[in-house]
């Protein structure tokens, strides 16, 4: 699963820690999501989408093998 979290976060000038604090998760979790190592739960994915005022589908996109 590819995602645009890093791109959107950087565009907003937020650090991983700051985004994590706003979403109620750790900096490490934001880093893992950005690296594609951790797939967030649906509530967290929706919280991320709400934070960037967009949709889950706009941020997370399945890859061929997903």
């Amino acid at each position, binding site marked *: 699963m590819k995602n645009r979290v890093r791109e959107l976060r950087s565009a907003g000038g937020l650090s991983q820690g700051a985004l994590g604090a706003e979403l*109620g*998760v*750790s*900096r*490490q*979790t934001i880093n*893992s999501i950005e690296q594609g190592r*951790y797939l*967030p*739960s649906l509530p*967290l994915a929706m919280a991320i989408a709400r934070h960037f005022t967009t949709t889950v589908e706009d941020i997370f996109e399945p890859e061929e093998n997903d």
Partner: protein
Amino acid sequence: MQLSTLLPKRTRSTAVLVVFGGALAAATWLSGDHGFAVALVVFYLVAAVVVYLVAGGSSDVAAIMRTDGDERQRSLDHEATRWSGIAMAAVALVATVVLVAQGKDPGGYVWICTVGGFSYVVALFLLRRRR
């Protein structure tokens, strides 16, 4: 009142070590092995201090020790617990088979296997109703 409201998050893991380490040391003392009991007290006190210091950090391990991790950290904890359970079950099963093959009493290993198998079935039954 819950444990979570009685103790600050950082001290919970520390308290578990102190309480259970203390109980183990007391039992060892009562058995007559005073030297080993003192060694256990020292070991668990050092471990408690290390855990208290580590739990004050910002790492994944610290958050798990404080039992206030986010969803990813909780999933790490669950996964690590699952692997730990698999390792314990494997040791208990192998030990039971080996001891029985040697004509010896497998003793506590049988209880571990029995409790593990029974608790798995009960947990599966209960979890299945929730999901």
